[in-house]
């Protein structure tokens, strides 16, 4: 069951886009960045964030390294790879195609 403001398949796209602008974010920062930039409209399910991140890391689109935080803990900071940049362009193009198709239907029907 999907909620109306869920992200469905576009989580990948958003993560890649944000990392392209602001590299070196850890998971929590990514989550808040998405929520802020979309003005609270889009909310990331925490349960699906990390599997998605790990999946993208597996695919080679992002890479991670451990950084030390001032609180003494370590966190994993992600950044985009070259393959990720290509993937971002592809995903963005796909998104554009889909949304313009939907818009066209809404206008004409």
């Amino acid at each position, binding site marked *: 069951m999907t909620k109306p403001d869920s992200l469905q398949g576009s989580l990948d796209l958003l993560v890649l886009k944000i990392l392209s602008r602001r590299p070196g974010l850890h*998971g929590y920062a990514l989550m808040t960045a998405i929520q802020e930039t979309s003005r609270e409209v889009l909310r990331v399910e925490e349960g699906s964030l*990390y*599997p998605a991140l790990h999946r993208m890391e597996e695919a080679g689109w992002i890479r991670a390294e451990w950084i030390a935080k001032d609180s003494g803990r370590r*966190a994993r900071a992600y950044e985009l790879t070259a393959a990720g940049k290509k993937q971002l362009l592809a995903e963005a193009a796909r998104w554009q195609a889909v949304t313009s198709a939907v818009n066209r239907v809404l206008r004409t029907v």
Partner: protein
Amino acid sequence: MSLWSRLVNVIRGDRLIAEIDEELESHIAEAIAHGRDAEEARRAFGGSLRQREASRDIKRMAWLADFLMDLRRAVRAVWRHRALTSAVVGSLALGMGVNTAIFSLSNSLILKSLPVKHSDRLVRVTPGGDFEAWTYPLWEQLQAHQAVLEGVFAWSSQNASFDLSTGGEADLANGLWVSASFFDVLGVRPILGRTFVAADDRRGGGPDGPVAVVSHSFWQRHFHGAVDVVGATLLIERVPFTVVGVTPPDFFGPQVGSTFDVAIPIGTQPLVLRRDRLDQRTWWWLQVMGRLKSGQAVESAAAGLAPLQPILRDLTRPSGLSAADAANYLGSPMTVTPAPGGVSELRRRYQRALTVLMAVAGLVLLIACVNVANLMLAHGERRRPDVSLQVALGASRGRLLRQLLAESLVLSVLGAVAGLLMSVWAGGWLVAQLPAVNGAPYVDLSIDWSVLGFTGGVAIAVALLFGTVPAFRATRVDPIQALKQGRGSAGHGPSALGNALVAFQLSLCLVLVVAAGLFVRTFTALTGQDTGVDRERVIVVDVDARHSPNASANRKALYDRDRILVAVRALPGVADAAYSSNAPMSNNAWNTVLEPVGPAASPIQDRSVLKNEVSPQWFSTYGIPVIAGRDFSVFDQRSPQAVVIVNETLARRYFDGDPVGRSIREVGGPDDRQPDLTIVGVARDAVYTSLREGPPATMYLPSAHAFGPISVRAESESPAYLIQAVIAAITDIDGDLKLRAHLLADDFSAAVARERMLAVLAALFGGLALLLAGVGLYGVVSYGVGARRTEIGIRISLGASRTGVVGLIVRRVAALMCVGVAVGVPISLLGAQYVSGLLFGVSAHDPATLAVAMLALASVGLAAAWIPAQRAASINPTTALRAD
């Protein structure tokens, strides 16, 4: 993340989980720092376990990790059920061990090629005319004229037992006569010194004198690995040879199954043998092999050699042949056959037998697998509650199947390792059973990749064979139903599948027992037949007189026969002595062709007979009665050509009625008419060289020259103790004679080595099969009785007698037996057809053997069913009914 890191993460296990947890924890800490409620933050993640597992599965190779986990669990399960494991591993080890041993032997003897470069281009060349070996003149011509093959070489191991001593006791080495091109064409490079060049292969040796090449093992043994072996002198038959090279350690010669110590050029033969036979045109003794040019096909090589044949024929035809025989000389063309494995007498004799043994061993393994499958089926039934629990917790059927198959694999691998160890020992024993063809048999049984690959493949096949069906059965559970039962004891007894497996096992067992019966009968028939000679009483002394001063140029006698015979006959314990040109069962045959004598001689198809020259009293030495006429006397030896004694078969074939007084004549050349020979006696048939064929037509001439073995008859059987005395007596008279004495019984024994091996092994396997089948049957019947306890309890309480219950069980077993036998009999008959070439004295469809085999199977079945039947009969109905 790459494939590599995913692979590595499989074993990183805990570290991986710790990292994932750390990342998730730092997220939560961040959330808390930003003011979110701790509880809520954690809950937002959903089930942390699932989070962790989802991420972990992304980060590592899931199937590999699962497989390793299955293996770990399988090892633990195998250890837990130790009793079952030992039974299973034991049966599998036996089955796989024998298979690996026989495969290893077959591999070395039949499949492997010679350890030389490009062995696939080696071919064997025969001269045509149904000859397998060449004469030296023929070989010389081939070598001079052929240009089709890249190279040809010749070799022989006849008369190649070289005495390295200077006198007294012989120190024999395995020798090889080789042509100069031998090592070059084979592509064998010496590790020290050089191999032969063309100049070395000349009569009397080449510019360096007589030279020799020694093998690596001989270099170690005789020269103790000394580095100055090149140039050292080696006395061969008291002729000094110079060692010029040493071959690499893995080269054992051109014959699989034997090794060589010293190789010398063919041209040096006159020096070593003290007589020059090389130019003889009727002595066929050389093996010729060649190497194809790169990319050349065997057929084109044969076609290229065909035009040579007429030239070779004309240049080497023996003189004195009649016109018909001359036309037939080398009538059929030269043949070229691929021979990557060299030429092997051992292989030729044993190939069929080894194939049969391989099939038999395979059947034993199959029986063992069926046993194991049944055990696993029953075991699966008992584990139903465990499996049901796993299914209830969410395990998929595929996952469970993989787990159970992992267990089968572990069992199978354990069995294979144990079997491999067993096969090393068994292989050694097998090779020891092979007869010595040229010295002690040498077969390289070291475990190489093909043997390991074979074992591994068999292990996996076996695991799949016995593991698949039980695994499928075990995972087909209805969790509720099974959990409800608690012990899960309401089984229906062995399923139709279990019964079918047992019946199949019984039929295989029948086939093996029939095979065992046939081979054992073959062996007893061969050894038990009347061979016409007293084999237990005779000692045969081979005489080598090349160093004796009596060995004159025209060889009137190589030893002083009369004095020796007198001396030997005078020994206590000796009943008689004689000499002849050939001894029975010595693999030496001398044949000739008779032509009709006298008016109206009827045409006879096969006029070839075997010939032997014997001294007087030779017949009584061997215990051969002269049933008509008389034995030879000393006077016959003075005019040796005029009289002859024939055996019964010859007399029957050529004459009706009494042949004494009639004549026969050997075929001679056009200018060389042989004299008529008058028959003075008829001897009883006796074996000559072959035990399988009946006694051949044989003619005996009085011996004029003494150049064959001396035969000694003892007064009692097993005369081994007399050997020393006989040798001493002969050496007293002529100390230069080289003597080798052995019992006639040993020759007979060696002749049946193959049949003995088949009989022993088939009997062993048959017994093993009976044991396995019996154990399997016992297991299945016990299980059935256990499962039907309730039913039997009810029957007994309703008034069934004990015998009635026993009868119930036994009837079940009998039904299985009948099915097994019904399937097994046609398979046995088919199989027997295939091995009929190896049988003797018993037909492939012999009903007596079949009947005995069925009886054996029936008694085993009865014995196996007896104990469970008794247990069934003593079931207490009240306890049985109460248990459920």
